């Protein structure tokens, strides 16, 4: 993704008129338990944000509050310029929602269901955004053309999921929520789905907030990654920023005379230079690997769980200020 290499503007500097999501100090309390203890983030138009976090971190609660399906305990929340707790139908028409698992409308046929659900959006078409999406084009875009006449109850898990995504975008949403969108996808379907997400964010400027457990997916899709742990955002930045934050060490692997070597170092470039100076042509299979997002994520969550939450956040803030 080209966007990744551009210098990023810190979320807090986003102008309010351009902010699709603006969440400040969002709190949610069930009984005596704080599920969300002050979540703050924002998103600009066309941005793709991945929300990561261990189970029970509050990802679903956050998304449900933003979708307007759940009341919050406290905090200022603006979604497409409105408070989701009081969003009307006009507001609803600009959102797309893909939840974790549906099995509704099992007797309906794929094309028929999309045409039906799309018809509700027609009165909400605007000059800039024609609604709904053309059904045949949409069926094709999610790769269900061969199954358009099938009953939805007869689709495989992955096909059903693609239908759910299609339903989520049938109204050409300006903001799309995707909860674990690719669970149960085979690699090809996943690749096609990623292309679709890029198309939505690049061409249609759809803002996308997705949750996933697949860190590789988060890295591929998201402009920005938020890590939610213990009801707080413990990291907020691009995959690259996150990796540099958590680990300055890189892993160098090579082989010499058929023997394999691994070495961790803070100065990978210097180490490799030295390696070649010493062994020259004998060095083969060279690989330099920076910490992956997965390593970073695990380290962040681990650090948080070990009770050094504030330290993790501060280290990250310092790192990001250094970047900007």
């Amino acid at each position, binding site marked *: 993704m080209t966007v990744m290499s551009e210098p990023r503007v810190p979320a807090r500097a986003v102008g309010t008129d351009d902010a699709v999501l603006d969440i400040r100090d969002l709190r949610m309390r069930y009984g005596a338990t704080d599920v969300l203890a002050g979540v703050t983030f924002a998103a600009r138009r066309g941005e793709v944000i991945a929300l990561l976090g261990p189970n029970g971190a509050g990802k*679903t*609660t956050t*998304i*449900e509050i933003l*979708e307007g*399906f*759940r009341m919050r305990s406290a905090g200022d929340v603006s979604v497409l310029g409105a408070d989701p707790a009081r969003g009307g*139908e*006009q507001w*609803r*028409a600009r*959102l797309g*929602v893909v*939840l*974790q*698992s*549906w*099995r*509704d*409308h*099992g*007797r*309906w046929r794929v094309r*028929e269901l999309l045409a*039906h*659900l799309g*018809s*509700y*959006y*027609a*009165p*909400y078409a605007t000059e800039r955004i024609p609604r709904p999406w053309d059904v045949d084009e949409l069926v094709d875009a999610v790769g269900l053309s061969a199954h358009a006449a099938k009953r939805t109850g007869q689709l495989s898990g992955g096909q059903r999921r693609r239908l759910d995504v299609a*339903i989520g975008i049938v*109204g050409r949403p300006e903001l799309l929520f995707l*909860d674990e969108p690719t669970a149960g996808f085979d690699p090809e379907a996943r690749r096609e789905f990623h292309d679709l997400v890029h198309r939505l964010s690049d061409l249609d400027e759809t803002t996308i907030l997705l949750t996933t457990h697949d860190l590789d997916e988060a890295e591929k899709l998201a402009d920005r990654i938020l890590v939610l742990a213990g009801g707080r955002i413990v990291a907020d930045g691009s995959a690259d920023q996150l990796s540099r934050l958590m680990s300055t060490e890189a892993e160098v692997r090579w082989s010499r005379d058929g023997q394999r070597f691994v070495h961790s170092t803070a100065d990978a470039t210097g180490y490799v230079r030295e390696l070649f100076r010493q062994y020259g042509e004998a060095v083969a299979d060279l690989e330099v690997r920076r910490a992956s997002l997965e390593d970073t994520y695990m380290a962040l969550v681990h650090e948080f769980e070990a009770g050094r939450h504030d330290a993790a956040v501060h280290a990250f803030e310092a790192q990001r200020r250094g970047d900007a």
Partner: protein
Amino acid sequence: MTVPVVAVRAGLTRGRIEFRNTLTSFQDIWSYLFPAVGVLVAMFFTSGAHVPGTTFSLGSSMLPSVLGMNIAFAGLMNLSQQLVVEREDGTLLRAKAIPDGMIGYLVGKVTQVSAMALLASGLVVVPGVFLVHGLALTGVGSWLTLVWVVVLGLLATMPLGAVIGSMFSTPRNMGLVMLPIMALTATSGIFYPLSQFPAWLQWVGQVFPMYWLGLGMRSALLPGALSAVEIGGSWRHLATLGVLGGWAVAGMVVAPVVLRRMARRESGSSVAARRERAMRQVVR
């Protein structure tokens, strides 16, 4: 508030498609045939019996009563069951996630349940008129009575069904509703004239819409002389209109409030939690 015409139209389409879908399911087709089979069985067991004080076959008099019961069942049971099932499978949440989706959903549900009730009734009335001796579905008057009783009956029972459906979170608890409704059927003069019951049971039966649906149907389909067997010796059209109308108005006031309260609590995690609970019960 302006009426969202598009959503209402979408709801009508929705009702039509859902109704068509029921015709492909064995279970649903059975539910259409059930009242007709019920009448046949009841007539078989009462062959030779007469409506008390007359020479009119008790079996023939049951046919209109069963029609009335069938409308009440459609409104109460069918609607509430569908609501509970569709709450569990996420259909309701889907409607919530779409602009004006709840309006479309409700219009669709009312359309579908009405169409189902009419088809099931047709399957009793049409053969009944030809095969059952003594029915008097003659003249515009009796057809008109039939129509207003059916329409008002559906209006009286469907909001009530929606309220019942909102009170249950899983279809597995719905069995609890069956029992009182069966008891209600027994005290609604469907299979035997209510006038022959003890007075206190007569009062219980007359509070609920099912008795009036049965009475209205009998008034449309039976010869006028049989009104002598009814409570008060009359078809009591005005009272029928009053009681069914009262239930309809009360239902339409209460149902939206209850439905909105129920729908507000629907979210992805509540649907998922219910699903998980259901899975555990299946595994056990």
